[in-house]
Structure formats: C-alpha cells, structure tokens
C-alpha cells in the first residue's frame, strides 16, 4: 500500500470496503458486493410487486366476468338483462386480464431465480421484455373497457347513444371497479419495467 503513487485510485481502508487487498482489482471487488446486495433487494421488491399485480389482475377479470345483472321489472324498450358478453370490448377485457394474470403466475419462478442469482442479466432482460408486452396488453384492455364504461355512464348525445347505467346500476358498478383494478395493474407493470431496467444497469 504505497502512499506516494499518484496513478492509482484512492482505495479507502479495507475495513470499509470489505477486504480488497490487490490494488489493481480494487475497484471491481468493492463494487460487486454492494451491487449484489442492491440487486437482491430490487429482486425481492420485484417479486412482491408481481404478487400484488396477480391479485389486481385476477380481481379485474373476475369482477368483469361475474357482472351479470337481471332487472326485476319489465320495460318496453330496453333489454332487461346485462352481462359482460353483450359487449365485445368487455369480452376482450376478461380474456386479456386472464392472460396477464396467468403470465404473472408463470413469471413468479423466474423472479425467484432472479433473487437467488443476482447477476442473471439475460433472465432480467427476458422478464423486462415480457413485462413490457404485458403492460401494453393490460393498458389496452383497461383503456378500451374504460371508453365503453364512460359511454355507459354518460351516453353521447351526438351519436344518440344512451347511457345504460341508469337502468343497470350494479352492472355498471362492477364493470367500473374492474376497469380501476386493471389500471392499478398497469401502474404496477410500469414500476416493474423501471425496476428491471435499474437492476440491469448494475449487473
């Protein structure tokens, strides 16, 4: 440990850096344990976020799928039964959220492997790509359903589309709740993608 060498990097005391003894390898040995610990924390956070996303995605699919409502009275002009498969957009919503929920469940083992192997860059890259696609699918399903729900709540005077929520209150509530759950899933996916990108930076 020569003190008069101006070309070497100033390695702090070995007690702080965790025992780096060779001058030439000083920087990389100091960086790896800290990055490994950070990566492990990030991977655990990723796993927990995935669990939350599974709950919200499946809740959205279930809420939309069980949104049948039959009105007890008879009206002349309006249909007295409403279900999610009356609207193709809602069918797409249920299928898309079910696919996203299934993908999340299948990606849990990969996430666990990322916790164990903190420097697995290829696996993280794969999860990032698949998460981006799942984000796109979730956002697409949620936004399309939100457009229809908005129309169901407010109607549109310019196109003579009437608001059906005035008759079917429970149906509307369930469907709106499902859309909110899918938007929460989309936000969780955004955080997952950003967290994966940050973890890739340090592998």
């Amino acid at each position, binding site marked *: 440990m020569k003190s008069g060498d101006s070309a070497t990097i100033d390695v702090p005391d070995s007690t702080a850096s965790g025992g780096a003894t060779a001058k030439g390898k000083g920087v990389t040995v100091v960086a790896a344990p800290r990055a490994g610990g950070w990566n492990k924390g990030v991977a655990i956070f990723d796993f927990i976020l995935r669990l939350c996303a599974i709950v919200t995605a499946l809740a959205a699919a279930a809420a939309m799928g069980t949104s049948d409502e039959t009105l007890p009275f008879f009206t002349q002009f309006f249909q007295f039964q409403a279900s999610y498969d009356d609207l193709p957009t809602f069918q797409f919503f249920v299928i898309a959220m079910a696919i996203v929920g299934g993908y999340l469940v299948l990606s849990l083992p990969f996430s666990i492997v990322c916790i164990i192997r903190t420097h697995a860059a290829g696996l993280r890259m794969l999860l990032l790509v698949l998460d981006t696609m799942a984000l796109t699918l979730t*956002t*697409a*399903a949620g936004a399309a359903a939100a457009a229809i729900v908005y129309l169901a709540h407010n109607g549109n005077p310019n*196109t003579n589309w*009437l608001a059906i929520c005035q008759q079917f209150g429970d149906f509307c509530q369930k469907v709106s709740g499902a859309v909110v759950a899918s938007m929460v899933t989309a936000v969780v996916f955004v955080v997952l993608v950003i967290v994966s*990108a940050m973890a890739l930076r340090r592998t």
Partner: protein
Amino acid sequence: MKAGGVEAGEVAKASAARYGINKGVAVLDFILRILAFVCTLGSAIAMGTTNETLPFFTQFIRFRARYDDLPTFTFFVVANSVVSAYLLLSLPLSVFHIMRSAAQNSRIVLVIFDTAMLALLTAGASASAAIVYLAHKGNTKANWFSICQQFNSFCERISGSLIGSFGGVVLFVVLILLSAIALSRR
C-alpha cells in the same frame, strides 16, 4: 507483468466490440424515434382534422361528425400530440447516446419516460379502437347504433388514424428493449 498485458489486450478487444454494438443500438434507437414521431404525429393530425358534413337533411340523425363529438377521440388526439412532442424532445438525448455510448443515468431516465409514454399511447389508441369498433358495428343490446352507415369518410379517417398510433406502440416496445440491451452491455 506478462499476464497482465495479455489480459489487458483481451479486455480492450472485448470492450471495443461492445462499444461498436452499443453505438449501433444507439443509432437504431434514434432512427426508430424519428419513425415513431412521424407515426404519432400523423395519427394526431388525421384524427384532429376530421370533419364530415352530410349533404342532406334527416330528421333524427345529426348531420355533422367531428372528432370532438366523442370525448374518447379528444383524448386520443391529445395523447398522440403529447407523445409526439415527447419524442421530438427526446431526440437530442438519443443523439447524446450515440456520441457517448457508455451513458447510463440518462438511459434510465429515457426508459422511465418511454414506459410512461407507452402506457399513455396504448391507452389512447385502445380506447379509440373500442369506440371505432362500436361506430362500425353498433351494439343491439345497448341500443347503440353504428354511425358509420351515415358517415363514411369520417369512419374511414378514424379507423386509419389508429394504424399510426398502434405502430407507435410497437416502436415504443422496441425502443424500451433497445435501451435495456444498451444498459446491460455497458
């Protein structure tokens, strides 16, 4: 230190190859950004300039159709405009990445914003797709009738503007992937 010299030579060759691929990735990122800008701007303009007035007068049906008759289309125009403005503003950062291929923090910033813009663009595009589908087919159960039967060119315009938007979505996914590749190969 012969072993140190040989190792230094190998490390230099590997890092030169990595540097070359990073530069290629940055150039591809720049090109795709320009393409996505053109796509989203085209979509916004195509939807924003819709205005069809029917030449005849009918009793029950409105005889003029514009994009702001439907709030979803207004959201679509706004979302596409915001995304195309963001892409224009992120071009200098992309050029910076071509010049300095080892930049990491700015790439992370770009990934964060790209992800947020992807979500916004997808939301706008798919909400409009739902309304365009309804305009084409209508829905008998909800007594919503299809407006495309009256307004042909309006319908064609709004359907066509979706193509540019969904193309932008695909390009954004590729952009995020490219940034991730560049990050993991620094």
